[in-house]
């Protein structure tokens, strides 16, 4: 990894301190060129990972983190870009594997990637109204309509938040049998008549 050559060629790129691999903060609009340069000139031929990070108190709010791997030199490099909802250039024309990672970052955080060939959601369904990995999204989830309107019309069902009582993932709230000791933790707060 020739860090000097990279920071020289892209003067807005800054080297960051990191415990495990060379890390750079890359200017948002230069990201695609930096990735292309690293692939063509420094042998980083495999995009290991691309993901978003939400920093609600920062401006710009979202981080996009890329991990590139060189299969010939056996080394990693990490690139940080930052953005609000203004777009980050898509790298999927350089590494087609980024396609799904970018779709996931859009799905989970609402980060948009300019020039993305297929900007759809990937893990949630297309009509889902939220971006679940944003920090303000509650762990239990938020009530939303079912993805299939025809099913919803017949059953009247909705996608409901997970009941959080007695641990995050008790499948049904309300009355539970005494055979499930973990479900009884609300009994701490109940007032019982003294025997």
């Amino acid at each position, binding site marked *: 990894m020739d860090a000097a050559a990279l920071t020289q060629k892209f003067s807005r790129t800054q080297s960051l301190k*990191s*415990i*495990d*691999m060379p*890390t750079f903060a890359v200017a948002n609009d230069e990201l695609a060129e930096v990735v292309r340069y690293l692939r063509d000139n420094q042998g980083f*031929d*495999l*995009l*290991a*990972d691309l*993901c978003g*990070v*939400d920093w609600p108190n920062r401006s710009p709010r979202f981080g996009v*983190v890329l*991990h590139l791997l060189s*299969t010939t030199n*056996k080394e*990693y490099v*990490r690139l940080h870009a930052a953005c609000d909802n203004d777009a980050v250039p898509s790298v999927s024309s350089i*590494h*087609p*594997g980024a*396609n*799904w990672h970018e779709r996931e970052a859009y799905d*989970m955080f609402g980060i948009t990637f300019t020039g993305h060939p297929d900007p759809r959601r*990937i*893990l*949630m*369904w297309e009509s889902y109204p939220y971006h*679940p*990995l944003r920090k303000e*999204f509650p*762990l239990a989830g938020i009530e939303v309509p079912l993805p299939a309107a025809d099913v919803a019309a017949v059953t009247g069902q909705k996608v409901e938040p997970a009941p959080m009582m007695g641990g*995050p993932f008790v499948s049904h709230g309300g009355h539970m049998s005494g055979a499930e000791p973990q479900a009884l933790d609300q009994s701490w707060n109940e007032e019982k008549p003294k025997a």
Partner: protein
Amino acid sequence: MKTTKEISLGDIAARSEELRGENMTLNMGPSHPATHGVLRLSLELDGDKVIKCDPVIGYLHRGDEKIAENMTYNQFVPYTDRLDYLAPLANNVAYAIAVERLAGLKMPERCEAIRVACCEMARISSHLLGIGVYAMDTGAWTVFMYTFNEREKLYTLFEELTGARFTTSYTRIGGLTRDLPEGWLQRVETFCDGVLKTIDEVDRLLTRNGIFLERTEGIAPISKELALSYGLTGPNLRASGIPFDLRKDKPYSGYEKYEFDIPVGTKGDCFDRYLVRMEEIRQSVRILRQVIKTMPGGAWYAEDAKKIFLPPKAKIMTKMEELIQNFMLVTEGPQIPAGEVYFEAENPKGSLGFYIVSNGGGVPYRLRIRGPSFVSLSILPAIVPGNFLTDVASILGSLDFVMGECDR
């Protein structure tokens, strides 16, 4: 004299183009035996030929990354079992090492050796299943019975070691749950002998089997360039001819101490991916034997693990400091320094990566899971079109994915 008029083959082809019917859209999955879980492929068919493939994933999305942000580092260990649920031991190890790197913990040799044994047994277990169901997808039932027989023995060994057959949660951040049980290594040795015989048997059943060859050889070849550009890892990358293996190239947990070879394919077709997995089982047995032979003594947890492990129960009940320590660990979690780390381990399905951002404290700020199956499936739109519908089962089987890890 009658004249013969020449009809060019092009004209005939053009006429057959006129007869071409409408394309048909076929949903394969989410409940289909060849999609190994809940993958849905939205296929566009021209007759029997696939002309477009759009994988629809997310049916098994449980929000593991969101859950991780809401619990302590220790509490997340059982969730890693449920990523690649065919190799939970290897997932546990990958997660533990990622957090340990962030915390700056160094593992003693015995712990590392036990972890290597865990990873290799997980690899054998995963590949046995991979090959068994792959053969079944192509119409060979028998292999599945042979390989599941061996997996059963492995599960018995896992049960002895961890107390669970399926969801093992064996490693802890800073060490392991417990030391090896008495005589366990000998039983692993016995298993090693048995599994090699089974693999030879499978070899005889499949490798030169005409039907199997017809269904796999030359199907969906992935070139080196394509494999790299899509970020394939693990056996799928190596089958395409790239000798990259994190155990060799970025050794962790003491893998540099063991001798083993990396099988590499040439054509990257479905058959090569099968061959690579077969050989990897043999190499894993080789590593296991070395681990058994050289198993070091000493501690199985790190010196600093006291800051992460719960204190012994007897001490909690009698000593003030341990009681406080226990309380802090349960309520706040182990204190991990601020920073970021990315660690990939060579899992059976490819590189399983954990990217952890910590602001300090006991809960990760962001925990990203890079599942190899997610990446393996992203290549489908590039390799499936042009193949027949029946080949889709072969292709899916050869990629050896698991939806738990893809959807997270």
